[in-house]
Structure formats: C-alpha cells, structure tokens
C-alpha cells in the first residue's frame, strides 16, 4: 500500500472551519488544541483583493522533520499507510517535534503534558468511515487516500502554496487544488 494523505480543494473552500470543529469533536479537544485548523489569507488591494483559505493539518510527510527530532521515538511512520503517528506512551512532552515541524502541526497539550497531532483518524478508517474532517466538509473540499492516486485524480494539485514552507524539506503527502493567486502570493493572514 502506498503513502496516504489529504487532498484539499482550495478553489471550493468557503473557510467555514467545519473540518476544524469536526476534528475537535472526534478528538474531543479543548480550546487551544487544534489538530486541523483553517487559516484565511487576503491578497491584493481594494477593489481587486482576493481571499483564500488553507485547511491545515498534518501532511503526513515522507520525511517528517519531527519524527527525526523526537528523542524518544514517540513519533513514527505507520508502515501500513505511511501516515505519521504518535505514541503517547513514549511522549515525554519535550516539544522538540513542535518546533521541528515546518508546518506547526504537533500540539503540546498542557493538561496531559504530552504532544499529539492528527492521526488521520485511523480508528475511524478501521471501521469503514472517512476521517472526520473529510466526512464533514460541507463543500466536499477534502479527500483522503493514497497520495499518488489523489494526485492522479487531481492533476492540477500541488504540494505547496505561497503561504507554506518549501515542500522539498519534508515531501508532504498533500495535494492542493489551489486558487491561482495562492500559488504566488502569500498575502496577509486575516483574523475572522
């Protein structure tokens, strides 16, 4: 089986943050902890300004920086699907991974003194469901599957937009159908 990851159709996203909350619901996360998080960016100036959203979560990279830095091997790659997973029993809460991940994905949870992150809803997938964010998206902007298949299905998809770090660092398993201007203009992050 190949490496799995998320497809995100930025061109249809309304920035509603349902994926973010569907994720919090499945993982029962308190305020301050987000395994998926939507950001909104604005580019250009009135009256030609444009807006795009980015629904961020773990990109389940092929070369995940935070797996490399974990001093206790709590971060690991699941060989069954290539997703980056986290062994909470081994986590010592040192937050090396939090700093190492160029996408800012791992979340240190103070009440548990541990770090955690998107696990691509492996438990839901095991019982035949989609990851919570995918099943919940009102605009059908998210898909999960083998990243090569997703890229074949969406040939226009990219693994990097202007607001994201250089994909060559970690080879993220993400495919994004991007708004044209999001490819070249990082823009300004907007408080909504």
């Amino acid at each position, binding site marked *: 089986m190949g490496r799995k990851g998320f497809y995100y159709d930025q061109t249809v996203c309304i920035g509603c943050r349902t994926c973010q*909350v569907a994720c919090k619901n499945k993982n029962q996360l308190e305020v301050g902890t987000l395994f998926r998080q939507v950001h909104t960016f604005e580019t250009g100036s009135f009256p030609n300004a444009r807006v795009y959203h980015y629904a961020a979560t773990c990109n389940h990279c092929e070369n995940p920086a935070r797996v490399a830095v974990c001093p*206790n091997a709590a971060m690991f790659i699941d060989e069954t699907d290539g997703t980056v997973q986290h062994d909470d029993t081994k986590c010592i809460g040192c937050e090396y991974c939090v700093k190492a991940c160029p996408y800012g994905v791992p979340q240190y949870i103070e009440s548990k003194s541990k770090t955690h992150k998107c696990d691509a809803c492996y438990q839901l997938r095991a019982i035949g469901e989609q990851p919570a964010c995918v099943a919940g998206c009102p605009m059908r902007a998210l898909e999960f599957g083998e990243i090569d298949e997703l890229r074949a299905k969406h040939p226009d998809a990219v693994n990097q937009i202007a607001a994201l770090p250089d994909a060559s660092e970690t080879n993220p398993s993400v495919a994004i159908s991007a708004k044209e201007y999001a490819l070249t203009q990082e823009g300004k992050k907007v408080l909504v």
Partner: protein
Amino acid sequence: MTDYHDGATMAASMPRRRFVQIGAATTALLAAGGVLSSCSKNVPEEQKEVDASAAERANESADSPSKATFERDLADGTWVSAACWHNCGGKCVNRVLVKDGMVVRQKTDDTHEDSPDFPQQRACLRGYSQQRQVFGADRIKYPMKRKSWSPENPNGDLRGRDEWERISWDQALDYVADELRKAYESYGPESILSFGSSGGVQNVLATLGGFRTKWDTASLGTCRFDWTRAGMLASNFQTANDRFDLRKAEIVVMVGANPAWSCGGIFPYLHLQAKKAGAQYIYVGPYYNATAQMLDAKWIPVMAGTDTALLLGVAQTLIAKDSPEHPMIDWDFLNKYAVGFDADHMPEGAKLDENFHDYLMGVYDGVVKDAAWASKITGASVEDIEYLAEAIRPGKRVSLIHGNAPARCNGAENFPQLFTTLGYMTGHMGKPGECTGCCYKSQVNGGPSLVKGGSKGYPSVKNPVTDTICAPVIWHSIKNGEFLSAGTDTKWENRGMIPVDIHVIHTEAASGIQGTPNLRDGIDVYRTVDFAFTQAFTFNTAAKLSDIVLPITTPWEREGGNAISIDREYVIFYTKVIDPMYEAQSDIWVAEQLAERMGLDPKELFPFDENQAFFNLLASSTVWDPKANDYAPLCTITEQDIANWGVEGEPQQGIIAIDDLVEQGVYQYKRTEGDGLDYVAYKDFLEDPEANPLTSDSGKFEIYCQWKADTLNAMGHSDMEFKPYPSYVPSPVGYETTFANLEKGEKGEYPFVLYNPHYFRRTHSCLDQVDWLREAWNNPVFLNASDAKALGIKDGDPVLVRNQYAQTVRYANLNETMIPGLVGLPHGAWLDWDDDMQIDHGGNDNLMMGPLTSNMGVSGYNNFNCAIEKWTGDEQPLDCEREIAAPRGIE
C-alpha cells in the same frame, strides 16, 4: 461535565500496529511553526529540557509505538438523530453516538452516498458544536431567583448585576403565577410583554387574555411588505427557480447575499454546482464575502443600504443604451406582463400622472438617474454600473438573485419592487436558467415542498391582543408610554397611537431583548418593570435581566420533533439524545404547570404528552406523489407500531416505516435532472397571463402600484414620501447621513455606515457562547485597511465602535475586501454590558441601532451610522479566552 470531556483519554483497546521506527536523529529542523490561531496556546516559550528519566520510563513501559492516550472507543453505542434547532435558514443532518447515556461523538449525513444531484445534508461547524452547548458550563441548572427581587420590592435597578439563589420548581412557578395574576388583575393583558416561539407558556397567556408583543421585519426586511399587491409572490419567496435550473444560467448576478456565512449547510454547495456548470457569478455588495470569493465572482462594490440608487442607475443605463442593434430591454416582456413602465402602460386607478421611465430620465425633477448619478450616492463606479447593465441585458441566460441584506436597511422600501423591475425590463423570468428573485436561504432552490414535516397537533390559541409594537422602536415606545400601531402582515394600516404600560416581561424560546433593536433602551425598560421571567437553557441576555429563570431542556433532551421544512427536498426528524440535564424541564411542561396554577385545565391546551405529539408529527408528515399529483403520508404505521409507541392513532400506508424514519432521522426526496419536478417561477402567468392573472389589481406585474405608495405613505413610522413606482428617497439614516455636507463630501460626526453581516460563529444570537465556535471565529469588527490607517488603527487593535445610541469594544479586522467607509459589526453577538462604563464588551449589534425606522417599520440592520476609534482602555482578551458568564451565587 468534566468526566464527559475526559472521555478523550479513555484507555485504548485497539491492537498495536506495525511501525517503522526512525532513529532519533539529532538534526535540528527548528523552522518557524507555521501560522497559529489567535486562540491557540500551542506556542512553546522555550524548548524544554528532555527529561531523561521520563524517557527511560516511557521506554520501559512501551516496547513498541502505539497511540494509546488518544485512542478511545469510537464505534460502540447507538447513533441518534440529533437536533440543530436554530434558525440559520438551513437544516442539516446531525447524528450523535450515544453510549451509556454519554455522547461519544457526532457525525453528519451518511444516510446515502453523496453526489451533487443527491447531496448529503452535511452540517456546518455549528451543528458539530451542539454538544458543547448542550453540555456547556453555562447551562441553567435549577430554577433561580434574583436575590434582591421580591414581589413587594422588585429592586429593578439591580437587574443584570444582582446575585442569584436557587429555588424549587414549586417556588418558581408560584412566583410566576402570582405575578401574572397580579398583572392581569391590576393592569390587563396589554401590560404583559412576551417574546416567544414555542407555543408553550404563550398559549397559557393567550388563554388568560393575551399579551403584548412585537412585530419585526427581522430577516425579511422590506421584503415583508405585502408585495403580492404589486403582483409579486409573498415575501418575494419562490421567485427564483430550482437548483437544477440554476445550473443552466450563463450569468448569475447575486446581490447582497452570503449563504456561506448565514446558512452553512447545503446552499453554498448549490451555487458551486452552478459555477461548475459554467455560470459566471457577479457579486454586488459592500463586502467581497466568502460566497463571492469561493465563486470567483466579479465584484461590484456598493455601499450598504444604497442598492436602490444603484439599481436605478442600472435601469436608466438599460434605457439609455437600448437600440435595435444592441437591445438592452425586452420590450415584449414589458408590453405583455407589466404595467407602469411608461405613459402608454399605466394601470387603471393611477392617481399620479408619473411613470418609471420618465422618472429615470429626469422628466419630473430634472435629474437623470444615470450611472454617474448613482455612483455618487452608492460608492459604486460608473464603469461597474454600466458593466452590470450590459451583463444583464437580454440575450443570455441570466439569473438575477438577491439576498435580504439590501432589504434589511432603513429606507429600503423600494428595493424588492425595483429589483424585480429589472427582471421585467430584461425579460429574465420564467425561462430555463433565467429568473429574477430571491435566493435568501433555501430560496435558491425554489419550488413547492416535495416532503413536508407534519404537526404535533397541539391546539393553537390566538393572542387576543392584536396591536403589536414595531420592533425597532419597541423599547423607546414603552419608555414613552405609547406606540404607533402600524404595519403587521395582515393589517397594512396606521391604527394610531396606543398607550402602553408594561409591568411583566416574559421570554420563551426566543432571543427577546438580545435580538431586538435599540437594546440600550431595552435595559432601561427591563429595570422599570415589576417582574421579568425567562425560560432558558443557557444564561442568555434575557435571563440575565430577569428575576426568575426557569431551566429548560434543549431539544436533545426532549422526545423528538422536526426541523421546520426549510428546503423542498428534505425534512429532518430529531430524537432524544440524553435525559434532561439537572432540573431542566420542557417549555410545554412549564406551560402545563402554570396553566394549572392559573386555574386553567392543562389538558385543554396540551391534550396529550410529548411522545404522542412526536408521533402525530410523524404521522402527519407527507411526501409528494407525482403519480397521484398530490401529497401522501410519508410513513407507514401499523397497529403494532401504535401499540409499541403507546399512543393513539390510525394505521397508514406510506413509503418508509415510522421507526425507520426515526432511526434515519431524515427523509430526502431523490431528485434527478429532468424528473419533471423542476420549478420555474411565475411560469403559469408568463405562459398564459389572461388565464393566470397575478395577485395585483391589474393582474400584472406592477412597476406602478398605487396601493404600495398609499400604504407606505400612510404608515406613519417616518415621513419619507414614496412613489407608486420605485424611486430614490433619502433614508432617515444611511450613507447620506454619514455626511455633514453631502454635496461637498464632508463627513459628519458618525462617518461610517454600520452593517451587521450574519456570522458563521452563531445563528443570530444562538450558539454565541460555545467555546469551539469562539475559537474558530473571533468576532472582530471589519473595516477597510485604508480607513483604519487614517485612524491609526492597526490589524488586531481593540477598537471602540460608537454612535449616538451606544458603544461597544471589539478588535479590528483590517481588510481590502470591504468598501471604504463601511464598518462591519457581525450580527448576534451576546451583550457583555458594563454598567459603570456604559460600554458593551461583546460586540452586540442591536445596541448600536437607535429607535429609528423608515416608513414600513423595517428593522434596519445594515445602514445605521457610527464612528470608530482606537480603544485606550483595558486589554480586551479574545472571546475564546473569556469566561462565559454564569449566574453569580449559583453552584
């Protein structure tokens, strides 16, 4: 509910998975941590020392990686259809996994495969957050009494700042019954002001002689006027075609609508299908909003509240540029279907020798209403106005659709008639891919319902007190001791001034004061009455200002019901998820208890229990049967079902077993392209106008409607003078009043137009207290970056929004997607009132609306005026970092 949330840490039972371990490399890849939410607390201040011994212990206890801490049982339990019961205008499937009376997780529609033609009814973040509301820390747990209130001495001055004490249900109900009795006996039914929607206690009050209440144009704005008298459909509903037809449009012009934020759910997805089918969207509005952004719409910026002037400019441009070589007007349509366009097509009974065409051309006032004229009043450019006229000229399949935001403005009385007039002029009506109408909420999928939710069958009691107080001026009128009775949906007449003396205020299943304009005066009124009581499940604004608060169940704790049939293709049925929390009871139970105390027979008002009511609702639900050309029962009910339910009823044949329907929680009619159930608005009239006349006096579309002018001009709420045809009449408050000198362009004391966009964090005021939603949506105030720069305001700065009525503090969102001169204060934020400072810290919108309205009494949400400045007071934490107010004195 600490235990419930700690469910996230349940021990794991999943087998450990195989893994690839990557050695603990030492490469330091300490790049910046990406973008973080404002409310995220995930920013480590400094790298922590690795606790070597902890690492060792971890190694000892686990010899291979697992995911133990966050694993929990996500599969076991029963899925229940749960309510998302608020009035956003959408309705979606929400299912909850319940185990041992505890909620494990929620999911949305997976009752059938998803496709654009037969889409799942997926919930938005609000539906997913219901669990945080139902189990919220701010639930009203017990009947409560405000400490300083007593029947002898209300100490009304302390409302909203007093402490509370827990009392028994008997004590609470006795207090309420005594106060109601006193008010009815001493001051009469008109002394009781009641806000409600559940048909519970209001039925009791209606039986006892009635109650005073408000009349509010609310979401509909000026579309609520009786436009059937001009030949249009009631509320301008069912005036757009259905969702399959929208896909046939080549151009969709959308005016003042943002279904992405206001409804969530399915409606933005329907627009996406039209875009994917090739429609080019043009968005006309003050803000390049989330819907327009998603659709890559061409944007025509226009100042809020000036749509009438803009559309007049478009109409004049159509006339001015029309020629046989370049037709801009569908003359055949005008000749055949409309009256009042020009002198040759005047309706009988016209008292004024004027027509729309000559008005536009300046015959009556010497002012040609061309694009240059419109540009000055609207902020839209001449080029954009001319572009819009060109885009909608006959020849292409154009759908002209509007939301109701432009109608929710003071002075917007002409908007609905004018918008539709553009359709008469261009002929974009009654044809595939062509319509001119309303896309507000489910109206984007026009047509009669294919499935209808039934009725619980409780008798409804009519309120004998029929004179209602117009919402925008309700508090001011009560303060003044008299109100103007005018408007209301059934009696469009001025009934004169009527004395008002309120002694009791009641709120039941409604936002009440929180959702009514001129809130500042409302606080004063509350503090003067003898008694205020509220039925609520959360400590909302009405509860805070009351003397007795009764804890009410949420729909998750009741037998079941159906969300109102909002879309023609589906109905949601919800069922009980958990037992009532704390001492909460339903509104119906409260009503029964009060009825008994007031000497009424509860059985006459509520003849059966809530289980029977739910059964009745299901049994009376119907579905369209194309073969019979009629509605037929939706569910099949057997004798056995009736016995199992323990109810009274008759067996019936439907298309789904009653228990299957309850389990499924939704019935969605499966439509396909070309199934013969298409809806094209006004089709019958357009095919045969003689055989199918419209509801106007002339039987045609009335661009000149005598009744409209006569009625609006007699209403008395304001002194604007309306013509029978659409014209420009300056509003008592709006863009014009932001200027001290309009001609010279000099701004006045309140130089910004204040508008109140519907906001994704909540549904009106519902759900505003929910933490996950507060984290996702920060509720800033929106303003253009150039305006902010001139005022020295930086992105994220706390700012004070103020006008002559009130002031509120928010943080600033600086953007380039809003027209300069506009301030966007999102609708529905909970009041967080500081009595000492006379300042709100919640961003409440109704506070900023003064006791001012235009002729029909519209609640003008989108064009009051304000000033904005940098806040120099205390630090303002983000909403998700604030405590949700709980009643002081109650554990």
